[in-house]
């Protein structure tokens, strides 16, 4: 009896987490440029600074490109 209850609870938790992951991935795929690698919606189109691990110096990397859907003006 207890084993069945535990199994149901495990499946329920697993299903909630899986649904959250799928929903979250879909949401973030749509809004990816706004939050890419530490940038906000304000600076997503500008170059961003990342500290290089070996030297500690600052190097400039281009901002993450917008997904195709966004560039088509959706």
């Amino acid at each position, binding site marked *: 009896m207890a084993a069945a209850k*535990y199994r149901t*609870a495990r499946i329920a938790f697993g299903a909630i987490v899986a649904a959250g992951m799928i929903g*979250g*991935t879909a949401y973030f795929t749509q809004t990816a440029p706004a939050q890419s690698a*530490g940038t906000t919606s304000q600076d997503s189109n500008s170059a961003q600074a*990342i*500290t290089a691990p070996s030297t500690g110096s600052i190097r400039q990397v281009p901002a*993450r490109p917008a997904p195709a859907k966004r560039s088509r003006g959706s």
Partner: protein
Amino acid sequence: MSATTRNSLLLILAASFFSGLALHAMDLGQVPWALSRAAGLAAFAVISLSVVMGLLVSTKAADGFLKRPFVFEMHQFLSVLSLVLVAVHAGSLLFDGFLHFTSVSLVVPFVAPYRPFAVGLGVIAGWLAAITTASFWMRARIGQKRWRTLHYVTFLAYAGALWHGISAGTDTQLPPVYWMYIGSAALVSALMMLRIVGYKAAPKRRRAAVAADRRRPA
């Protein structure tokens, strides 16, 4: 380990390796990055819930409405689930064409190409979580006292995960994420305080009970 289990593990490893190679060759666009963010947030939520369940077992705070074996079972299950999510969170970064994480920078702290300190804390938290989760199955071998001592490492893992999420996460400013961090930290802190107070009060209660027994006429 039986031959069937060994063969299944080898098959899973081989399938993961070849599907990994195939996925690496494909242009997955923003999907790995989005998956990593979703998995990271889910991992933190599950780790928080697991820590809360563990504290509910040790403080006995949920004894009135939840059975302790059930809470312990869920604590153990959520610990394993959180490790799976951490693996997805880190593994999906290998397929991201923007940040260029390598398998080494995902398992060795402080060598990541992006925010090395904050990511390093996450790597350490992941390792600590893996060690404490593995200790569930080593309890009989290492003994209850050592297991309990090792289990305190969970709090370091939780603190590391929280710091990693806040400082390396790109979604901390989103209201649901922000409130998840605050709610989780508040709940865990409150239960920890309850645990510390209960721990200090326990010997006093025992002494009072012994004294009451002595005063009682035979």
